[in-house]
C-alpha cells in the first residue's frame, strides 16, 4: 500500500457487513448475564409503569362514585409502590448498561492497543499518526452506547412490536393487514436510503480522520511551520479539511433523518388507508369501538418502528466506526513470533549473517547476499554513504524487518525462530532520533530496565556524562521533560537515551548515529566511560565522525548492497580504497 497522507481517504472496499456487529457481539457476549438481566429489569419496570393508569381508572370508575376516600388512599399507596418498583428496576438496568457500555469500549480499546504494539515499523511509517490515534480514542468512544443500550432497546422494541401486532390482529385481521402493508414500503425506502446513508457516514469518518491527522501533524511540526511562515497556507489546508468534515456530516444528517421522516409519513398513509378500507369494505357493519381500538394500535404499532429506525441509524453509524477499528485489529502482524518459537537463551554475542538478501518493498534489494560473522565482544563500525543500508544491517539483527533470503544467527540461533521479546531484550539499540517520553528524567532512563534502582540509574547517567547537567536542573533527576524533550538540547537527549540503553545491560549494543549531536569532547569522555562497560559486549556503531570509529576492531564500508571493504583502520587506510577516500575528506580539506 502506498503511504497514506492526511488528505487521502482510507477507502474500505468491503460492503456493509453485519459481521462487524456480530464481531462486536463477542464483546457484548462477555456480559451476557447483565444484558439478560437488564432485559428482564426493563420488562418489569415497564410492566410496573403500566399499573398506574389502571389504578387511576379504578379510582375514577369505582372509588369516586362511591365517595370512598379510604380506597383512594389505598390505591395511591399501591401506585406509589408500583412507581418505586418501576424506578428501582429501571435504575438497576441503567447501572448495568453503564457498566457494560464502559467495559465494552475498554475491552475493544485494549485489544486494539495490544494489537498496535505488535505491528511493525512499516505500519507506523505508512500513515499519519493522527489517524491511528483517532481510532484508538475517538472511534472507540463512539460505539459505547450503540453496543450497550442500543442492543437492549433493540430487543425491547422488537418485543414491543410483536406484542402490539398480536393485539392488533386479535382486534381485526383485515384492517391489521392494511396496517402491516406499510412495512414492505418502509423496507423499500430503507433499502433505497441505506447505501447513501452508509456512504455518508463512512465519508464523514474518513474526513474526520483526515482532519485529525492533519491537526496532529500540524501540532508536531509547529516550530517548522512558524519558522517558515507557513501559517496561512496551513490554515487554508485545515479549513479545506474542516469544510469537508462539515459537509459530510451534514450529508449524513440529511440522509439519516430521512428515515424517521419516512416512518412518520408511511404510518399516516397506512392509517388513512385503513380508515378508507374500513369504510368501504365493512361499511355500516363495522363497530366504532373496533375502528378506535385499531387506529390506536396502528399508531402504537409504528412507534417501536420509529424507535427501531432511530436505533438503525445509531447502528449504521457505529458500524462505520467498528469497521475502522476492526480493520486495524486485523492488520497483519508481519514480524511476529513463529509458532513454537522458543526464548533465546542468554547469548555471548556472536552475530552471523548468512547470505542475507533484504528489500523493504519487495522490489529493490537493499542488501544482496550479505555475509558477515561477528565474534562475541567484537566492536564493529559501519561506514559508507548515506542511504547505503547501514541502518538496515543493524535493524535486521533486532528483527525489525524479516529478511527475504538467507539466515541471521545469534550464537547459532536463527533469530526468526526465537521470541521477539527474548531477542530484543538482549539488544541495546540507540536510534538517531532519541525519543523522550513525558515524565521525569529518572523515568526515562529507567525505561531501559524497569526494576533499576535510583542508584543504578544515576550510575548509568554518570557513565555517559549526563549526571552533571541533570543535577544542575531544577529538580535534578526528577525534572519533568516531555515528549520530544523540548527542555533538553538534542545532545542532552542523546545522552539521556544513551544512559537508557546502557541501563538495559545489552549483550549486543547498536549505536546508530547515537552521538552525532554530542560534542567531540563529551563524546570522548563518554567513550572512556564506556570502554570498561563494552568489554565482552558485541557492538555495532554507525557514525560519520572518524574519532568515533577509528578504534573499532573492524570497520565495514557498506555500499552497493554489501560490504565493499572491511578491516582495521590502519589496514583500510593502507589499502587506499573507499575508506581512505572518506577519511582523507575529513582530515584534509
Amino acid at each position, binding site marked *: 500500500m*502506498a*503511504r497514506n497522507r492526511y488528505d487521502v481517504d482510507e477507502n474500505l472496499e468491503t460492503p456493509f457487513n453485519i459481521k462487524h456487529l456480530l464481531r462486536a457481539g463477542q464483546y457484548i457476549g462477555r456480559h451476557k448475564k447483565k444484558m439478560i438481566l437488564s432485559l428482564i429489569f426493563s420488562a418489569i419496570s415497564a410492566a410496573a409503569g403500566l399499573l398506574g393508569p389502571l389504578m*387511576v381508572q379504578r379510582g375514577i370508575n369505582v*372509588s369516586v362514585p362511591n365517595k370512598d376516600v379510604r380506597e383512594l388512599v389505598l390505591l*395511591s399507596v399501591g*401506585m406509589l409502590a408500583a*412507581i418505586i418498583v418501576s424506578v428501582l428496576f*429501571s435504575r438497576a438496568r441503567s*447501572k448495568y448498561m*453503564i457498566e457494560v457500555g464502559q467495559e465494552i469500549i*475498554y475491552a475493544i480499546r*485494549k485489544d486494539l492497543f495490544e494489537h*498496535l504494539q505488535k505491528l511493525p515499523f512499516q505500519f507506523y511509517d505508512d500513515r499519519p499518526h493522527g489517524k491511528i490515534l483517532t481510532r484508538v*480514542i475517538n472511534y472507540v468512544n463512539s460505539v459505547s452506547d450503540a453496543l450497550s443500550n442500543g442492543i437492549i432497546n433493540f430487543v425491547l422494541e422488537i418485543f414491543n412490536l410483536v406484542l402490539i401486532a398480536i393485539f392488533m390482529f386479535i382486534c381485526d385481521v383485515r384492517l391489521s393487514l392494511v396496517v402491516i402493508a406499510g412495512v414492505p414500503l418502509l423496507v423499500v425506502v430503507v433499502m433505497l436510503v441505506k447505501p447513501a446513508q452508509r456512504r455518508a457516514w463512512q465519508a464523514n469518518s474518513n474526513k474526520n480522520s483526515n482532519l485529525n491527522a492533519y*491537526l*496532529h*501533524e500540524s501540532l*508536531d511540526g509547529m*516550530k*517548522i511551520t512558524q*519558522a517558515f*511562515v507557513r501559517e496561512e497556507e496551513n490554515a487554508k489546508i485545515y479549513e479545506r479539511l474542516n*469544510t469537508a468534515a462539515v459537509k459530510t456530516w451534514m450529508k449524513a*444528517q*440529511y440522509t439519516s433523518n430521512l428515515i424517521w421522516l419516512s416512518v*412518520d*409519513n408511511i404510518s*399516516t398513509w397506512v392509517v*388513512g388507508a385503513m380508515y*378508507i378500507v374500513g369504510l368501504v369494505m365493512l361499511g*355500516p357493519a*363495522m363497530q*366504532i369501538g373496533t375502528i378506535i381500538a385499531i387506529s390506536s394500535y396502528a399508531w402504537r404499532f409504528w412507534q417501536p418502528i420509529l424507535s427501531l429506525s432511530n436505533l438503525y441509524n445509531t447502528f449504521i453509524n457505529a458500524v462505520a466506526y467498528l469497521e475502522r477499528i476492526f480493520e486495524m485489529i486485523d492488520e497483519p502482524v508481519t514480524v511476529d513470533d513463529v509458532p513454537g518459537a522458543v526464548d533465546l537463551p542468554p547469548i555471548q554475542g556472536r552475530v552471523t549473517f548468512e547470505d542475507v538478501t533484504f528489500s523493504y518493498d519487495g522490489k529493490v534489494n537493499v542488501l544482496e547476499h550479505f555475509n558477515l560473522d561477528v565474534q562475541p565482544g567484537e566492536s564493529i563500525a559501519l*561506514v559508507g*554513504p*548515506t*542511504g547505503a543500508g547501514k541502518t538496515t544491517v543493524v535493524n535486521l539483527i533486532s528483527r525489525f524487518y524479516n529478511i527475504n533470503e538467507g539466515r541471521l544467527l545469534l550464537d547459532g540461533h536463527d533469530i526468526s525462530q526465537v521470541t521477539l*521479546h527474548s*531477542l*530484543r*531484550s538482549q539488544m541495546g539499540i540507540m536510534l*538517531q532520533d532519541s*525519543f523522550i517520553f*513525558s515524565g521525569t528524567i529518572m523515568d526515562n532512563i529507567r525505561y531501559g530496565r524497569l526494576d533499576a534502582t535510583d542508584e543504578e540509574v544515576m550510575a548509568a547517567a554518570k557513565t555517559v556524562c549526563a549526571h552533571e547537567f541533570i543535577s544542575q536542573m*531544577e529538580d535534578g533527576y526528577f525534572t519533568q521533560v516531555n*515528549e520530544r524533550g523540548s*527542555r533538553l*538540547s*538534542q545532545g*542532552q537527549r*542523546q545522552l539521556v537515551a544513551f544512559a537508557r540503553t546502557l541501563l*538495559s545491560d545489552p549483550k549486543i549494543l547498536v549505536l546508530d*548515529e547515537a552521538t552525532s*549531536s554530542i*560534542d*567531540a569532547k563529551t563524546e570522548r569522555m563518554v567513550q572512556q566511560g564506556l570502554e570498561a562497560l563494552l568489554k565482552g559486549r558485541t557492538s555495532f556503531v554507525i557514525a*560519520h565522525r572518524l574519532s568515533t570509529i*577509528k578504534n573499532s576492531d573492524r570497520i565495514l564500508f557498506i555500499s552497493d548492497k554489501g560490504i565493499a571493504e572491511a578491516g582495521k583502520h590502519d589496514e583500510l587506510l593502507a589499502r587506499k580504497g573507499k575508506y581512505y577516500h572518506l577519511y582523507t575528506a*575529513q582530515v584534509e*580539506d
Partner: protein
Amino acid sequence: MFQLKWVWKRMEGDHLRYIFALCSTLLISVMDLGNSVITANIMDTVFQPLQNGAVTAQGILPHLITMVAVLIGFTLFRTGFNYLSIMTYESCSQKLIFGLRRDLYKNMQEQDQAFFGMNRTGDLMTRLTGDLDMVRFAVSWIIRNLFGNILSFVITAVVFFVTDWLFALTMLVVSPIILALTALFSKRVHPLYVELRERLSQLNTQAQENISGNRVIKAFAREDYEIQRFDEKNRDYKEANKTASLMWLKFSPYIDTLSQGLSIAVLLVGGIFLIIGRISIGTFTLFNSLTWMLTGPMRMLGMHLNDLQRFFASSNKIIELYYAKSTIVSRPDAKNPSGRVAGGLEFKNVGLKLHGTQVLQDISLTIKPGETVAIMGPTGCGKTSLVNLIPRFYDPTEGQVLLDGTPVRMYDLKKLRSSVGIATQDVFLFSDTVDGNIAYGDIDLSEEDVKRYAKMAAVDFVEDLTDGFDTIIGERGTGLSGGQKQRIALARALAVQPSVLILDDTTSALDMETEKYIQEQLAALDFPCTKVIVAQRISTTRRADKVIVMQDGKIADVGTHAELIQRPGYYREVYLLQNGLTEEEVPIASEAKGGK
C-alpha cells in the same frame, strides 16, 4: 453559564437562524397534537354518524378521503418542518464548530514554544476533537431538548393554573424539591466531568506518545510495559466514566419517583376534589392526560443538566485555548521593510532564562551581512538557544538581538521569520511529497527550483525513490535515514532564499563526502546570505569566517579556525580529538592558514 453566552457570541451571523430553530421547536411541540385533533375529527364526523346510521358509507366516503388527505398533508408538512428544524440546528452547530476549529487552529499557530512545551499534543488533540464535539452536541441537541422540555412544562403549568389553581398547586408542590435535587446533582457531578475530561486527555496523550515512540518501544521490547501503562489509563478513564454516569443514578430514583408521583396527586387530590365536587370529570381528564407533560420535563431536566455539565467542562478547555495569548507577537508598530534585509546580526549583552535556569549570559556578538559564523561548544551549552533568539522562538530576558541594526522584537514577525531560513536539529518533515517538503516555505516554488535546491543540498537519493520527487514520505520523515532527512531539511531552508540561514547541527548525520559537497554549495549560493552554523565537526567549522566557542551559556572564545587551533582551549582539544592528533602534531599557524 458564561460558557453558553460565549458560545452564543461565537454564533454571530447565525443568531436569527438559531432563534428560528428554537421557535420551530415551540411550533413542533404544538403541531405534535395535530394528528390527534384530525383523527378525533374523523371519528366525530365519519364513523360516529355512520354508526348512528346518519350517513351511508358511500355518501361519507368523499368526506373521509378529504379528511385522510388533510391528515396526510398535515403529516407531510409537520415532518417536513421538523426535518427543516433539525437541519437548522445541525447546520448552526456545524457552522459554529467549523468556525471554532478554524479560530483555534489559527490561535495555536500563533503560540510560542513555551506553550507547546506546556501543552501536550494529546491534550490539544482532545480539545479539538472530544471537547468540540461536546459543544456541537450542546448546540444541536441539549439546548433544543432542554428548551423543548421547559416549554412544555410551562405551557402545561399555565393551562393547569388557569383551569384550577389549587389542583395545579398540589401538582407543582414537588417541583421545587425536584429542582433542588437537580441543582445539587448538577453541582456534585461537575467536578466528576472535569475529572473525566482530564482522564480522557491523559488517555489520549498516552496513546499518542506510544504511537510516536513506537521505534523506541520496539527497540527496548517494552510492548508489555506499554500495554500495562495504557491499560492503567484506559481503566482510569473507564472508572471515571462510570463514576460520573453513576452519580446520576444516585439522584434519579428520587427525582423519578417524585416526578412520577404527580400521577398519585392526580389520583388522590383529583379524586377527593371530584368527591367534594370541586372539579368536573372533564377537568380531571385534562389533568390526567396532560400529567406526562409535566413529568417528562422534570425527569429529563436532570439528564439535560448532566449533559450540560459535560458541556461546561469541555467548553472551559476550549475557551482557555481560544484566549491563549502568545508572548511572542508582532508589535502594533512593527517594522515591515519591503525590501530584502541585508542580514547583519548583533547580540547586545543577551541573556536568556528558561525554566529558572540561566541558559545564556552576556552574549555580545556582531555578524556582518554575508558572513559565515560557526558556533561550537559542549552539549547543553546554549548553542541552539542562541540561534533560537534570531527568529524569535524565544525573546531574550536581557539585552537585545538586532537584525540590520533594528531589534528583532521591532520587526513584523512574519517579515522576520521569512527572512530567516532554519534547519533545526530535530528534523521534522511532513507527510507530504519530497517536493512538497522542499517547497514548504514557498508553495509557489517552480519544479526546476525545487530540483535546484535539492541538488544544492545533495538530495540526490530522491532518484532512487519509487516516485522521485513525488514520493510521499512518512510523518516525521520515517522511512528515511537521518542523513536523508537532514538533506531535505536543508533544501527546504535554502528554498526560501533567506537573508540569514541558520543550520543547527544539520549535517551531523551526513557522510564526509556529502558534507564537503554541501559546504561547497553553501559557499557559492546565488543569493546574499548570512550563515550561522551550529556544528560539532571541525570539518564544518574550519571554513567559517568566524568560529564562536560557547561554554556554559557564555561566549568562551571567538576567532578563525587557524587562530583557535593555535591557542589552548576547547576548540583545539576538539580539533585534536577529531583528527586523532596529539598536541605536537598541530600544524603551525602559517601552514594552517595556507591550507585553508
